[in-house]
């Protein structure tokens, strides 16, 4: 599904160039649940931003299915990401002045989907995530776990092939974190490919594969067949 070849990312700081990703080669198959780990500053979020097509300043080859992302311009990348990718953020990034339902509708509103269909899709996802009763509440009326639940609902409402999550449980206590990770596992079982960035070993065990980064280099790529099933 995704193939990264020799991906490099650096930032200019004055006269020097600071490398955050070095020669990353990574293949992600459909149905994968990949966890990116590593210490702070290792390049995890940078890699996730590249996968999310939010960052343009990298070098190398990025294949998304048959599409060579590295040959696309910014708009084409935006179009592709809008169709195929969903994002979950550590601090939820719900918009304060939109209700739960409106927040979930947001990514749909950026596509050419008729309003009626959008309403149906939002209703389905509210039902699926069991937050129908909260659809008219504003984010500040929800707990952190509920906010992240809505954040995930928003990320998957348009049924993306790839779900990217940046420290999705970083701001949650352990019970809420477990619920969210269960949700990810369910989504993965239903066919959504997931890439998450986390510091948590426990969260990593919900995935099928761990990729570790250190100082921008990929230092580990380990797959365990039964990992997700073991976590209870």
């Amino acid at each position, binding site marked *: 599904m995704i193939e990264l070849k020799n991906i490099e990312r650096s930032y200019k700081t004055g006269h020097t160039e600071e490398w955050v990703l070095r020669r990353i080669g990574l293949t992600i198959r459909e149905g994968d649940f990949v966890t990116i780990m590593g210490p702070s500053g290792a390049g995890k979020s940078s890699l996730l*931003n590249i996968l*999310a097509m*939010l*960052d343009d300043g990298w070098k190398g080859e990025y294949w998304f299915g048959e599409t060579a992302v590295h040959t696309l311009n910014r*708009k084409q990348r*935006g179009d592709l*990401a*809008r169709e195929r990718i969903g*994002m979950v*953020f550590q*601090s939820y*990034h719900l*918009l*304060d*002045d939109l209700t739960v339902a409106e927040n979930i509708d*947001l*990514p749909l509103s*950026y*596509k050419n989907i008729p309003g009626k269909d959008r309403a149906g899709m939002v209703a389905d996802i509210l039902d699926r995530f069991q937050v129908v009763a909260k659809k008219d509440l504003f984010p500040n009326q929800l707990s952190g776990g509920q906010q992240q639940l809505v954040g995930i609902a*928003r990320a998957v409402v348009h049924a993306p092939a790839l779900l990217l999550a940046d420290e999705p449980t970083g701001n949650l206590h352990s019970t809420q974190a477990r619920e969210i990770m269960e949700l990810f596992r369910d989504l993965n079982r239903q066919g959504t490919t997931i890439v998450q960035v986390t510091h948590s070993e426990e969260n990593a065990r919900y995935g099928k594969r761990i990729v570790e980064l250190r100082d921008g280099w990929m230092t580990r790529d380990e797959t365990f067949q039964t990992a997700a099933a073991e976590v209870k």
Partner: protein
Amino acid sequence: MNTLLHDLHYAVRRLQRAPGFALMAILVMALGIGANVALFTVVRSVLLKPLPFKDPSRLLMLYEQTLVGDEYAYNNVAGGIYAAWVTQNHSFSSLALSRVTEVGLSGSGGDLPETLKNAEVSSNLFSTLGVEPALGRGFTAADDTAGANGTAVLSWSLWKRRFGGDPGVVNKTVYIDAKPYTVIGVMPAWFEYPEATTQIWIPVYQSDPERMISALDNHMYRAVGRLKPGVTPQQATADLAVITRQLHDAHLDNPFVSFSANSRPLLEHMVGPIQRPLYVLLAATSCLLLIACLNVANLLVARAAARRKELAIRAALGSSRTRLFREHLIESFLLAAVGGAAGLAFAYGATSWLVNIRHDMARANSIHIDGVVAAFAVGRVALCALVAGLISALNADNKNVLTTLHESSNMHSAGKQRAQLRKILLAAEVGLTVVLLVGASLLIKSYERLRTTDMGCATNNVLTMRLSLPYARYKTPGPAAATFVSTLLERVRTLPGVEAAGFVTAVPGQGYYGDESFKIVEDPPLPQGQAQFAIYRYSDPGYFAAMGIPILRGHTFDDGQMLDHADEVIISESFARKFFPGEDPIGKHIRFSEQQTVGVNSSIVVGVVGDTRYSIGEPAAAIQYYPIYTGTESYGALVIRSSRDVAQLAMPVQRVIQGMDRDLPVADVLTMDQLLGKSTLDQSFNTTLLSSFALLSLLLAAVGLFGVLSYIVAQRTSEIGIRIALGAQRQEVLRLMLVDGLWPAFAGLVLGLAASAATVRLMRSMLYETQPLDPMVFAAVTGTLLLVAAIACLAPAWRASRLDPVQALRTE
């Protein structure tokens, strides 16, 4: 007190650390306060301050009420009526007469002749007003009799300019219209009456012929009266009305003898025409000041947002809300005070400039900044400081200290409230700007209409200059004046570059210059008490061709139209339509009283010419033209048309005149374009000032819009990042931000248009052929404002759409 000084010290330091903000706020305040104080200075000096005469509240300007209706409700006074008022009234301690003319002043020492505004006045004018000459003496009754030696009083400016302020000028002889006059006094520098530009006063009964000054129907004079103690203006006016009515009833055969009298306070008479425009301009500067206040309030709100963390720390360290509130106000007062000081300097410069360029305006010399104006300025500073300071201080969120300290987020509700407040302030600012824009646009359209008015004659490449032949050397009626004009035209026409030249008593656009009654010989007599009258002009046969006035029927005057053989008349199209409806006027006869004085019983209509306008803002009126060579008139305008730059002919033509009479002054050497420009000076001035204020407001509103949207973009950076991360395209972000920035502009526009519709009616009297609710003007203002708002919003909105989502999300 110590704490206050401490806070003041901190405020100065804080502003020093934000020089861009401080400079901007001070500049905006200075402009607002300066413009408002300048206009207040003018309004107070010109309209509100009592006249500098003795007990000015008892001075009344007196008028005849000539015909029923408003048109002649405040007519000039005939000398005969005035004489009756003087002898029969019981209400005035004194009455005085005046008449404004133009005279040629020439010195005895070979000084250049010049044309001056002169006032013929009754000997008691100065005592009636309660004014003493600064030098020498005023007129005595003996000076003001027919046959007395000529005496003259000079204005201060004329004395300084022409006589170098020499105290020995008293008893010297000057030549006014070639007659010797002894200078008997100099008036004080501040004195101006009857007009601001009057430079010389001579006795009226000594100057004007008995026939003219004793007539009951010759409305040429202005009368002023001083009320006796205890008499009200209403009682006095009724007193004069009774006297006038008696004269009217005794002369029912003369329709021009007025039937009643009217009065106005002297101040109102002097400043009446400029009252409305000055109040409109003062209102405009008040709008501008409010806009400036809102702008500064907006800046302060943004600044408070930027200082939120600092204020939270202060609060956490124990500062009370009152103390923080006071700090806000001190900063605002400091900005307003510095802005006010700069504004006062600006106002001083502006009023000096105004006095310099509009010295013709009534009471222009009295315009200066005094204690009251300074107090007004201080009041304005306090008001601005309070308005701007209170808005930002009341909005400062000092309650959620902990939240503020913990949050680094840009997306908290207080930030949104601030953005909301800034939008509301901006909407108010835009609304006021719209009112100014609509007012200015109406004046611009009106002025445009005025300047593009078809005068009925050529206005390009036509040069005009005015001459007044002194009676002493060119007695009228008589051949001398006719011969002078004839010779002058002959010589001017031979000058290289002159295509055509003519002479007329007044060119189109130069003014009314009097009407006179006439009778159409072929028509039955009019019923008693009715009369026909029309404007009259004297011209040479070549005038119509020179001025490009078409001859629609018949022909111009024959060459033989000289002196008592001059029995032809040419009428304008309006004259023909009005007095010969459905008839052919050619060949009809008109009996004209002025012509009868030179022995012409009646004149035959030989031509009909196109209509012209005597004044640029007035409709074409009926005009009758008589041959200048009858020798009845000794003044007029020379017109010269050329195919090249006609202004270059000014000197050669003046040399011709000087060659014919070296003591003859030439006045108003102007092209027709300049002449029309001069006659629309008031409108041009008002339009320019109001437009400047409106543009300034537009600029402030645009800066406000730019600032607010930049602020909103900063507030919403992370939100924009989220939206982009969730799939929003650049153009969607651009549209979102533009809508966000444009709604206050739109709301302000709607409010402003509604307010304009309610207020512009007050400007009706200032508009020419323009309706106050002109849809084109409202549409143009709407378009302009939205365009400017869109431009102002575009940069921050574009910046928002270009945000790097990774960076934007990192700011959260």
